[in-house]
């Protein structure tokens, strides 16, 4: 067996999560995460990219002690997150998708008590809170109640809270979902600065641009599995020119499907499956056309992660 990779902060071996009660249509148990292997090194920003339901949040849940894996091992900063979850939590900072700020406390108190939960003295917690409020441009809102903060401010406060105890890994679950464009840029800026300071970050996203721009390495996930894992540039290079042509055709067809079978947050699971099936059928059609020599349009100048995703899954990555 191979020894531990030097400076490996997250090590995941054979990690699966099966929900027996949440059966699929055919009655089989729902496999949210399927035999995952991952290794994240210190100081990198690692992205899990995939559509809703790909298993990204379940993966983060397992790595942050909140979801018990069905099989496999997850080690964060040398600590087994299942066997010693209380110790593992010391090394973990989490920004979940929902606003989880303590509404009974002010913005500053959210930071202060977080520090106290992690064993800081009164003085240390005060100092760390004030520093972070300053750094995240929240000093003016220090004594505001949580409900008085805008979405972007709440998100910044949650990031500040998550890094206050200097975790070995910062988990950001869909950090910019639902943020306005300006707040999204501000958050990217924050993540970039943390990266410069050497913070290891694992983020999940379904925004191609976010993964491309922020991450050192990206794992493309779909249906609980990792389909490809490389640097954004590496992923794009691995897509051949012909793949690119097929992907562009596929993308155009997908866009026209948006008109016929639109999908948004309120779309039912049944309609989503129908749409996915239609996309797969189109994907087959494109491949068939290609194989009999029907000319496909030229690929764009630059292959994007979106085309990579379409090549891998036969469908478009939707929000």
């Amino acid at each position, binding site marked *: 067996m191979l020894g531990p990779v030097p400076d490996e902060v997250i090590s995941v071996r054979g990690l699966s999560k099966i929900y027996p009660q949440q059966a699929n249509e055919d009655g089989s148990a729902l496999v949210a995460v399927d035999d995952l292997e991952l290794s994240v090194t210190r100081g990198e920003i690692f992205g899990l990219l995939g559509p809703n339901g790909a298993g990204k949040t379940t993966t983060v849940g397992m790595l942050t002690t909140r979801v018990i894996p069905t099989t496999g091992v997850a080690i964060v900063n040398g600590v087994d997150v299942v066997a010693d979850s209380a110790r593992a939590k010391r090394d973990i900072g989490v920004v979940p998708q929902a606003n989880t700020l303590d509404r009974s406390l002010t913005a500053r108190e959210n930071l202060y008590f977080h520090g*106290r939960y992690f064993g800081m003295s009164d003085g240390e917690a005060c100092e760390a809170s004030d520093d972070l409020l300053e750094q995240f441009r929240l000093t003016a809102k220090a004594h505001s109640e949580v409900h008085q903060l805008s979405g972007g401010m709440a998100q910044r406060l949650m990031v500040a*809270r998550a890094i206050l105890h200097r975790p070995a890994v910062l988990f950001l679950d869909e950090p910019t979902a639902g943020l306005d464009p300006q707040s999204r840029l501000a958050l990217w800026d924050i993540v970039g600065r943390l990266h410069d300071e050497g913070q290891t970050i694992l983020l999940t996203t379904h925004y191609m641009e976010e993964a491309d721009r922020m991450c050192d390495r990206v794992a493309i996930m779909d249906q609980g599995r990792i389909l490809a894992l490389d640097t954004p540039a590496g992923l794009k290079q691995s897509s051949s020119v012909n793949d690119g042509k097929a992907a562009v055709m596929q993308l155009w067809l997908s866009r026209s499907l948006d008109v016929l079978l639109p999908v948004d947050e309120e779309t039912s699971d049944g309609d989503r499956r129908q749409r996915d099936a239609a996309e797969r059928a189109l994907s087959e059609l494109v491949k068939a056309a290609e194989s009999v020599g029907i000319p496909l349009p030229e690929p764009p100048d630059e292959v994007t992660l979106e085309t990579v995703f379409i090549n891998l899954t036969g469908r478009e990555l939707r929000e």
Partner: protein
Amino acid sequence: MTVEAVDAGTGRWSTFRALLLRDMVVLDRNLGEFVPNTVLQPLLLVFVFTYVFPTIGQAVGGEGGAARFSTILVGGLVAQAVIFQGIFRVALPLARELDVTNELEDRVMAPAPLSLIAVEKIASGALQALFAGMIVFPAAAFVPATPLFVSVDWPVLLTLTPLACVASAALGLTLGTQLDPRSVPILAGFVALPLAFFGAIFYSWSALEPIPWLQYAVLANPLVYLSEGFRAALSTGIPTMPLPVIYGVLVVATAVLCLTGISGFKKRVLN
């Protein structure tokens, strides 16, 4: 024990203390709501039953009249304040924070075992139940116009009070982790009211002797043991259930409720 193990141990207790500090800061902030909420109903009861009724000549309290009734009420009202504040101060925030607002998240991610985080909830609820009892006692003992007979049995009071407070908070944790926040009105209507009316607040348990089926049915109500216990602790001269029965039931109930509450908490938090 290794240095690291000692370090981790003290770390966990400092987390526990910080969680408790947070709850006390929030309680302090909400005192303006906590005190009236705790004291209003007992004050109204005392006023109507021990001042208005005797003054307008409406008989109450059976043999011995209003004075005896005021005496019965003291233990019952303290018990009621303890059990309801213990239950509600744990169950209501928990049901909301677990399900609707997710704001328990940061405390769940604090570096301590989940069982210790659940125990903190019980400790915090028990302290609030204790404060409630301490606020209600003077209201019940000194407001009535009629004289009443109270002399404190310190050994009983000092042992029974913590037990009663912990039992109530553990019941709150059990309910709070099982409860869907939408069913909170049910808790208030269908649980609190019967608990109160059949909780031996307004009468002593032994006085139910003429209605044997009811006397046995109310034994399922935890408030009965608290009311009887506080009456014994405040030595009101009213006959109570034997102390070993009160202590026995409370000790067993506290142990069972702590275990169900802690395991319920873990189940709700983990996936």
